[in-house]
């Protein structure tokens, strides 16, 4: 057991009054809330679909068209109906889960790593590094995130990789600000001063003591960022800037359905949109639940 574990454990013991690890105490608080439980189940369901789909069902969007059954309403054979090219919408929504969720999660992963690294460095080194990093973040934040993402992809060209780049770029400032403020708060705490007093090097203090203790707010932010990134990815797809046809992606499917909604074909836009909303709602519920669970100081909110 390292000094850090002891420090964290003591805090947890003091807070919960019982000898559990902080992670398991947080987990108990999380699943005790019905809203967080619902979010957890929704997120797990979408992630499961994304992981399992390619194993149980092969899909080639290029050959999946059946012009004899265009725009058919839901039936037993096609529970979500068919789209303008006669493709089964259920199959496309399910396979799009992988594309949309994959894009959102990878964009957030990149943003988390880069953003929190920048924030930790800015907060720890202070001075000029801090000034430059936070100035860059302020500039990115001057733009509405959706607008900046759209403008960047419009310039560098449509596609999944460029969408990933744009979405992670606009998600970075939240992490940089959060991790910077954590460092500024933690660096004056007694356990950090103690570690320094024991002769730990600067990097060891940062990596071994400050970073692990600032994880809870970053975990919450990651969950909420994924929700936001799913929306951004869908918006880019809807504007024709994200996944390119015939790749199934929720936003792009909505863009396709947009041409047919006046004909009353509700199933074409209903299901991809519902998938976006439910997955975003799931991550938001989970994020709110995690915020309450990971910060016992907030009490019963």
């Amino acid at each position: 057991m390292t000094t850090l574990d002891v420090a964290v454990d003591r805090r947890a013991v003091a807070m919960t009054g019982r000898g559990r690890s902080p992670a398991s105490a947080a987990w108990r608080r999380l699943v005790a809330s019905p809203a967080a439980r619902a979010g957890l189940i929704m997120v797990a369901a979408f992630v499961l679909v994304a992981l399992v789909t390619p194993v149980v069902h092969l899909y080639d969007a290029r050959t999946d068209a059946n012009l004899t059954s265009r725009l058919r309403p839901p039936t037993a054979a096609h529970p979500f109906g068919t789209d303008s090219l006669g493709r089964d919408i259920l199959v496309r929504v399910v396979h799009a889960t992988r594309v949309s969720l994959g894009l959102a999660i990878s964009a957030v992963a990149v943003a988390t790593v880069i953003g929190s690294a920048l924030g930790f460095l800015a907060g720890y080194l202070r001075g000029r590094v801090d000034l430059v990093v936070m100035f860059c973040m302020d500039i990115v934040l001057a733009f509405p995130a959706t607008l900046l993402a759209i403008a960047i992809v419009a310039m560098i060209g449509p596609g999944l990789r460029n969408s990933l780049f744009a979405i992670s770029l606009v998600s970075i400032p939240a992490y940089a600000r959060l991790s910077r403020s954590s460092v500024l708060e933690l660096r004056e705490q007694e356990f950090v001063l103690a570690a320094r007093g024991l002769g730990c090097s600067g990097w060891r203090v940062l990596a071994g003591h400050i970073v692990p203790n600032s994880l809870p707010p970053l975990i919450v932010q990651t969950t909420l960022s994924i929700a936001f990134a799913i929306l951004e990815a869908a918006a880019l797809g809807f504007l024709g800037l994200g996944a390119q046809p015939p790749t199934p992606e929720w936003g792009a499917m909505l863009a396709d359905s947009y041409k047919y909604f006046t004909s009353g074909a509700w199933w074409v836009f209903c299901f991809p949109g519902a998938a976006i909303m439910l997955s975003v709602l799931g991550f938001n519920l989970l994020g709110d639940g995690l915020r309450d669970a990971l910060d016992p100081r907030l009490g019963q909110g």
Partner: protein
Amino acid sequence: MRRYAIRRSLTIVPVLLGVSVLVFSFIHLIPGDPALTMLGERATPEKVAEVRARLGLDRPIWRQYILYIGNALRGDLGVSIVRGDPVASDLLRRFPATVELAVAAIVVAIAFGIPIGVASAVWRNSPLDSLARLGALAGVSMPIFWLGLVLAWFFGVQLRLLPTGFRLASGTAFVPWTNFVVLDAALQRDWSTLADALRHLILPALALATIPLAVIARMTRASMLEVLSREYIRTAEAKGLSRRAVILRHALRNALLPVLTVIGLQVGRLLAGAILTETIFSWPGIGLWVYESIESRDYAIVQGVSLFIAVIVVGVNLVTDVLYAAVDPRIKYE
């Protein structure tokens, strides 16, 4: 206070410079030759050279930036590659439509968001509160372009109650003065046009209002709960004031400050959301214009609108901060 306002105003200068550098660099994000990309493969070399010269791409990059910022400061945002019109004048001509939509959306968001938030806080943990909280969370999770489609389909196509596109019925003989159609129709006492304009406004405004409404409701609830736990509320109750007076006069007035800040932060969201909403509802503002320009690779327009919106967002944030300091005497600034 005045010193704070001045110092806060000065902080936007470097931010605006940074914003202009970022928007300027957009054109260099285009892979390959921007002029060739804009004109397409079949453009003649003379035409490409002409566009390169007009964009200043044949000069060193720092000269290009000086040129760009100099023009922008004089209100010149370049020229549309496709139509040849100056971006700035088209922008100003189209902007009123977006403002009209955004104002309608924020009015809806405030009119519903604040009462919902107050009720949610006052009857905390009641079924009403749970419903409002779930509704607000669903609201922030809503892809507004999808909501727009659903609204347009249900009210426009199924019920045939409301129009699903444009600002006025086609063939309306109406000459707007300022391009704020609702305002113009009211000023011209053209009541049938006013009614028509409002009918066209309802669906896009509802779609655009969803996220701000949810955010305002959540913030009002949190802020009200915070204030309601304060000592002075207990004092007011102990004085024997009616519950209504305590909630509206003592609690809500103090709870509204953070809500005001959140409303200020919605301006950027509304303008970005307008790109999606206007696309769904063929609303001829700057959002639809951006969408069309992306399709036709008219990059000067994307650049111009981005810069314009960023400047507005920075300006609104400045005003919100200064107002906050002016309204709340408890806050001291170094």
